[in-house]
């Protein structure tokens, strides 16, 4: 890594430079599955951020004692623990959100972003940087989920956080909240995200 490792760099890179899932094309399953409504997308993003932050901190702090051969098993145990904690807490305090996200909460365990950051970053870097990385990537991911679910909910249902915001005679573009709509929406956004830096570098 050529760039200086500062906390602010590690934190902010998650918002643009390797923004998941657009730049870091990981974590696509929840992105496609739970972004029908903004509430679900945001809930999923925050849950993922929580898991990512704590698994990064724990893994980074015990990285020297984990033997290389069993590192993935150890990471998964730690990640799974935090996922179950999120599940229980969500069930206890946000039951309606828990009902909507359902099976996708336990599936955070296999979200590639989390294991990916543990393996690629937390296992090689000190705690404070890992925490910044986890929080940055997590919030970046939340931001992406919010963005894509806002597009899908506004176009597909004519609502935003469940409130009607389109004009009265608006006929919801129901395709957007169906599964194929998610793929096409994601594809178009990915294309746009690739177009913007190309334009910027072209202008310079």
């Amino acid at each position: 890594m050529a760039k200086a490792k500062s906390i602010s760099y590690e934190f902010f890179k998650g918002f643009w430079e390797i923004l998941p899932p657009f730049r870091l094309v990981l974590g696509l399953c929840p992105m496609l599955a739970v972004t029908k409504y903004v509430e679900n997308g945001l809930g999923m993003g925050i849950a993922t951020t929580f898991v990512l932050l704590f698994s990064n901190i724990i893994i980074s702090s015990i990285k020297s004692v984990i033997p290389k051969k069993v590192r993935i098993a150890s990471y998964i145990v730690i990640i799974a623990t935090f996922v179950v904690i999120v599940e229980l807490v969500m069930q206890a305090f946000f039951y309606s959100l828990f009902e909507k996200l359902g099976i996708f909460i336990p599936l955070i365990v296999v979200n590639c972003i989390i294991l990916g950051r543990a393996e690629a970053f937390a296992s090689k870097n000190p705690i404070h940087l890992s925490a910044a990385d986890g929080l940055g990537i997590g919030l970046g991911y939340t931001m992406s989920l919010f963005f894509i679910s806002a597009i899908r909910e506004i176009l597909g249902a004519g609502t935003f956080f469940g409130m009607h915001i389109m004009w009265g005679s608006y006929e919801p573009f129901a395709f957007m909240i169906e599964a194929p709509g998610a793929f096409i929406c994601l594809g178009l956004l990915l294309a746009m995200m690739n177009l913007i830096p190309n334009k910027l570098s072209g202008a310079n």
Partner: protein
Amino acid sequence: MKEYIRMVVVLTVIATVCGFLLAAVRKGTETRIEEQVLLYVQGPAVNKVLSSSTNDLIQDRQEISVQGQDYLIFVGERNTQPWAVAFERTAGGYGGDIGVLVGFDIERDIVTGIGILTHSETPGLGARVSESIFTDNFNNKTLNANFNVKQDGGFVDAVSGATISSRAVCSAVRKSLELYPEIKKEIVKQ
């Protein structure tokens, strides 16, 4: 060899610590989750089948023991007099157990209605047993009615394409019918 021992020790320690952590969190959230489940899962169903009650059904839930087994029952009251009771029985469906809440009017001895609490049936097929178009089949039926799907000679319109799930619901209702006289006795005693 030393490496192997280290691997075993590290993994064991991590798993143990995680296990304790989870147990603690579970212990801490247990009562709260139970309340939430009652409120969000059983609440709507109970309020539907015992709809003309004047008391808070969830708050007044009680556990009673019949023939050595404990059952969670919801007693509906009108003018502080118990008039109806609802409780859950399960039966094996297509994808797992289906939990069916059955409400009984203890004054007139009829089934007031049913609600599906838990199920893991196929969405769009078996899962449609929880829709009111199916559960309304059971509204205000006398106890000696034939609680079976029409193919089996009963009065229940099965959800098309989901006979197994529909049968399971009927069988859970029949189980409640068996239990009902005992539970009624207990309530009347009180």
